[in-house]
């Protein structure tokens, strides 16, 4: 392990020198300390080259000390936990951290593809549009693979993520975003008033700029002051401090999205802890105290490793006790950067030269610098840089150019308030000439901005503003805010002369470091007419990388403004959209992955069916028994055919609890049913059930099912499994919105009742042994529905219904008795060879019987299409009646429901095959309909089908082609009536 830490100061900083942490970068081992970021630890060890750029593979170093980092993107961890594009500047160091540089080949130091920079003239603005337009076929085969190889970011893990991610919701009165000076004061003001406060900060150490501040606050070192504030906040019962938490989006009604990096600072999450947690924070008010982001000045060679934002140099020195270099120069246009450098120098950082574009700089600063032996060049500009990592600068002054040795160049072009979240409801930032920066415009409702995020610069001013805005937020909610003692900090005056780009500089001058967009590219966009900021962005990709142009947007805009001669606000502004920082897909998915993407519902007899050897299948939201294979059966078809045959010859049972069940009570249920079903229900007798068809208001069939009248004012309806929720919602709409005058109360009872279908010629024999009362044909005739008991006193509803075409019953018991009922029926049916069957056999029997099901209730079929035309009452209005009469829906040429059998009985039918007249070409014009359902009928010994074909019922006996281009099959079929078994219904009435 390298133990150098040669750029580490011996004292100071917010690191714990008693807790060394080992880590590796590109396979080399290093040491850092607790309190380091990966970036500060790399700099401490003298590692300055950390990556290659996106397009030109230029060597890049660490540019910032925060979330705005465009360069230092690394792959973290390895194997399944490998995470690309991690910003080293916000990656908290932990023992054993492994990081690797990205986008380099074969190695970081020697990169073959850095040749790309010789291609730079061709890869400039709009190169995607210009170079690869023609020929189109080359795109997939040639250009894309090359570009993917040459340009790119890190590699995603190729294995499933072994960690899990949580979602959580929190509520508060005041959400404070950012725990810098303004945020801490805002949280304290609201917290002391008794408001429920959440203070969220993306850093692992709250305090923001206070942690990099050299001076005192309230007679304490600034970081100690911050720590004291945090301690008090954490002691307040209504305040919650959330560190490592980025608020990334502002949504409607005071809803904020936040990402908590619960375990990113650990090699792997602790047991039962998620890697990250996605928060939905509901806040009555919010205070944005996100601070500001420093912006660079653009000049030739400004991307060389060693060029760094001035504030970042200050942060590394003050907070991490790291010297970014041994010969430091500053290039700036403002006083704040001078003070930052003087403080760094006082802390031991060897600052040798200060270069300022201004000819006039406050005398106190120049005198202070000279007193420290720092060379001062005013009215000067950096025009070039040298070295693989920075070794020297070329500076143009009034008297000519000169070379200056430097291994670190701190750059500052001013500060841009972090207005991002204020734009999330479409608000546009406003240009503030006094600070040459965009400040918040119209904010989302309930959000106010405090401190540097709104352009209030200066520590003292931020503390005061935070306290005031926090108090205001709490007061607006009715809290009484006690007076807050805000420490006095004297702020130096803000002095900046806007300066963006050194026009006479040599070499590529990068505006957007992450997307490799140069000042020249902005010039090309201007020349070619892409001058509006939205076009500039898209044409050059400026600001469109994962950093969202934090350090480049305003500069790019300013350069364009200078080219067009317009002002910056006239040229445009940039709107920021969520998320503020990248959010991992894992966090957005949370637990909804793999089998948990959509949890399955289990039937009341699930365990019983499993014990019977069932094979299960997901049908909609349910896991249902598909079939029950027995030893020696060679495939599912043999199993299903055996189940069907056993039912038709003896008796079988299946769980049908998944049907929707709706309880209807009240004086007007009959009238209500008349209005929602096409057929009449008002005359349904107590103790009877009736099949019904429902339409949508547009005239298409919505659902079908049976409704039974259990008592004069008590009915129970069944719906199809798939439409249970939709039908219930529809019925509530009809009752609450359309006909509130009807006396009907609805209740979904799908979960409360287990329902088992018993079918086959011996069904009554079995039921008689389980039911406590009389189930003879007289007591319970076909379509009868009675309440009684089974199994010696278990409340039950008995329905004489048949989906299979056999003598059939459905027995409903309270859900907890479902499995017991299945067992009781099995026992009672043992001597009749009772067979449990699954939904495959159920499907085969309904196709044999010619019943419609989900395949036919497709939302595109009318009652007439499905053969229910004569069921529709003409004596009443019902939902869908008027529009069902439209010419298009009553066209006699519409495909209508019939059966199909293969002319050659050895051939298999395929659902989805389209019907064509014999000899007709397979064209849309000749298409007459399609096969909706097919099954192998053990009863007939060949395949059978149901389908929709033009004028079907008039064409029984006619032969057509069933054409299946997907499987490349074609077969001749004969149209027949849709009942293949017992069409007269003798069996089910028996």
């Amino acid at each position, binding site marked *: 392990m390298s133990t150098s830490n040669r750029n580490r100061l011996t004292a100071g900083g917010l690191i714990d020198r008693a807790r060394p942490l080992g880590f590796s970068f590109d396979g080399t081992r290093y040491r850092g300390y607790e309190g380091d970021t990966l970036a500060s630890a790399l700099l401490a060890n003298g590692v300055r080259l950390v990556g290659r750029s996106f397009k030109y593979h230029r060597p890049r170093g660490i540019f910032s000390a925060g979330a705005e980092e465009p360069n230092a993107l690394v792959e973290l961890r390895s194997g399944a936990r490998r995470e690309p594009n991690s910003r080293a500047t916000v990656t908290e160091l932990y023992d054993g951290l492994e990081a690797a540089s990205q986008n380099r080949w074969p190695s970081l130091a020697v990169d073959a593809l850095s040749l790309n920079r010789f291609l730079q003239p061709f890869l400039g603005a709009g190169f995607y549009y210009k170079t690869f337009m023609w020929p189109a076929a080359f795109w997939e085969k040639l250009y894309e693979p090359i570009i993917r190889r040459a340009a790119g970011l890190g590699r995603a893990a190729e294995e499933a993520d072994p960690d899990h991610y949580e979602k959580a919701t929190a509520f508060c009165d005041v959400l404070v975003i950012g725990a810098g000076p303004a945020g801490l004061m805002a949280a304290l003001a609201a917290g002391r008033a008794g408001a429920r406060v959440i203070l969220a900060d993306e850093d692992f150490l709250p305090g923001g700029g206070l942690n990099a501040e050299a001076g005192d606050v309230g007679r304490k070192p600034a970081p100690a002051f911050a720590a004291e504030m945090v301690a008090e906040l954490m002691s307040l019962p209504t305040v919650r401090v959330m560190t490592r938490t980025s608020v990334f989006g502002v*949504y*409607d*009604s*005071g*809803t904020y999205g936040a990402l908590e990096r619960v375990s990113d600072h650990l090699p792997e999450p602790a047991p039962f802890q998620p890697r990250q947690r996605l928060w*939905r924070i*509901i806040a009555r008010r919010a205070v944005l105290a996100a601070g500001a982001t420093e912006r660079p000045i653009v000049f030739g060679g400004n991307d060389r490793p060693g060029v760094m934002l001035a504030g970042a140099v200050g942060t590394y020195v003050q907070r991490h006790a790291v010297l970014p270099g041994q010969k430091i120069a500053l290039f700036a246009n403002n006083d704040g950067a001078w003070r930052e450098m003087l403080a760094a120098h006082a802390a031991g950082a060897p600052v040798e030269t200060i270069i300022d574009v201004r000819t006039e700089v406050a005398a106190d600063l120049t005198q202070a610098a000279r007193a420290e032996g720092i060379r001062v060049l005013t009215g000067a500009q950096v025009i070039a840089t040298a070295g693989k990592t920075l070794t020297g600068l070329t500076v143009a002054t009034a008297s000519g150019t000169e070379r200056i040795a430097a291994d670190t160049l701190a750059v500052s072009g001013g500060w841009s308030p972090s207005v991002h979240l204020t734009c999330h*409801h479409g608000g546009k930032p406003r240009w503030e000439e006094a600070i040459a920066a965009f400040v918040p415009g119209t904010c989302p*409702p309930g959000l106010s901005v405090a401190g540097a995020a709104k352009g209030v610069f200066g520590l003292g001013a931020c503390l005061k503003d935070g306290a005031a805005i926090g108090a205001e937020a709490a007061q607006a909610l009715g809290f009484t805010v006690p007076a807050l003692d805000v420490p006095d900090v004297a702020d130096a005056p803000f002095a900046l002369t806007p300066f963006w780009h050194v026009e006479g500089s040599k070499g590529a001058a990068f505006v957007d470091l992450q997307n490799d967009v140069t000042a020249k590219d902005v010039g090309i966009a201007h020349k070619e007419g892409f001058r509006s900021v939205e076009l500039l962005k898209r044409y050059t990709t400026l600001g469109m990388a994962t950093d969202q142009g934090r350090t480049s947007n305003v500069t790019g805009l300013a350069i364009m403004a200078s080219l067009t001669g317009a002002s910056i606000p006239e040229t445009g502004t940039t709107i920021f959209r969520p998320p503020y920082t990248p959010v991992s897909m894992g966090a957005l998915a949370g637990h909804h992955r793999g089998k948990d993407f959509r949890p399955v519902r289990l039937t009341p007899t699930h365990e019983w069916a499993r014990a019977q050897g069932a094979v299960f299948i997901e049908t909609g939201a349910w896991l249902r028994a598909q079939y029950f294979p027995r030893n020696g059966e060679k495939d599912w078809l043999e199993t299903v055919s055996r189940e069907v045959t056993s039912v038709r010859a003896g008796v079988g049972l299946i769980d049908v609890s998944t049907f929707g069940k709706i309880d209807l009570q009240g004086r007007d249920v009959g009238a209500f049913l008349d209005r929602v079903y096409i057929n009449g229900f008002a005359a349904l007798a107590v103790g009877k059930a009736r099949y019904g068809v429902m339409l949508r*208001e*547009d005239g298409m069939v919505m659902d079908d099912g049976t409704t039974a009248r259990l008592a004069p004012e008590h009915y129970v309806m069944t719906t199809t499994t798939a439409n249970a*929720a939709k039908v219930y*919602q529809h019925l*509530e*709409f009809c009752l*609450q*919105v*359309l006909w*509130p005058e009807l006396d009907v109360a609805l209740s979904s009872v799908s979960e409360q009742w287990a329902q088992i279908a018993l079918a086959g010629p011996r069904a009554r024999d079995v039921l008689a042994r389980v039911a406590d009362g009389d189930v003879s044909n007289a007591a319970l005739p076909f379509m009868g529905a009675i309440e009684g008991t089974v199994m010696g006193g278990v409340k039950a509803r008995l329905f004489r219904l048949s989906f299979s075409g056999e003598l059939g019953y459905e027995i409903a018991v309270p859900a907890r008795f479902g499995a017991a009922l299945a067992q009781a029926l099995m026992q009672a049916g043992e001597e009749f060879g009772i067979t449990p069957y699954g939904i495959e056999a159920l499907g085969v029997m309904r196709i044999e019987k010619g019943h419609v099901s989900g395949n036919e209730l497709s939302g595109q079929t009318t009652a007439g299409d499905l053969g229910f035309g004569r069921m529709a009452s003409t004596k009443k*209005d019902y939902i869908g*009646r*008027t*529009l069902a*009469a*439209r010419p298009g829906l009553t066209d006699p040429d519409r495909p209508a429901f019939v059966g199909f059998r293969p002319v050659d009985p050895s051939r298999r039918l395929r659902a989805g095959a389209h019907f064509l007249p014999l000899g007709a070409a397979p064209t849309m014009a000749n298409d007459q309909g399609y096969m909706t359902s097919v099954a192998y009928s053990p009863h007939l010994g060949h395949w059978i089908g149901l389908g929709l074909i033009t004028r079907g019922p008039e064409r029984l006996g006619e032969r057509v082609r069933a054409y299946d281009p997907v499987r490349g099959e074609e077969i001749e079929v004969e149209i027949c009536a849709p009942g293949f078994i017992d069409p007269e219904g003798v069996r089910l009435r028996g």
Partner: protein
Amino acid sequence: MRIPCPYCGERDAHEFAYLGDATLTRPDPAAAEAEQAFHDYVYLRDNPAGAHEEWWYHANGCRQWLRVARDTRTHAISGAVAARVAGEPA
């Protein structure tokens, strides 16, 4: 988005199902131009930028249909009343 359900309090929009314009009235099927009226009722919708009164169903809550006043430009919700209760949402 959060909807103030008169029965359940302010709840997240995830709990609700949306239907659309709450100012439409189901036409009289016996009227002379019933087919045209139903066609308009089922298919034709205004798409206003601004105030909109619309149906939301509290599916994962009280199962009531609510008449909600929402500004389509800002998603600001100014009120909600149950369908069965007379009166304007806001």
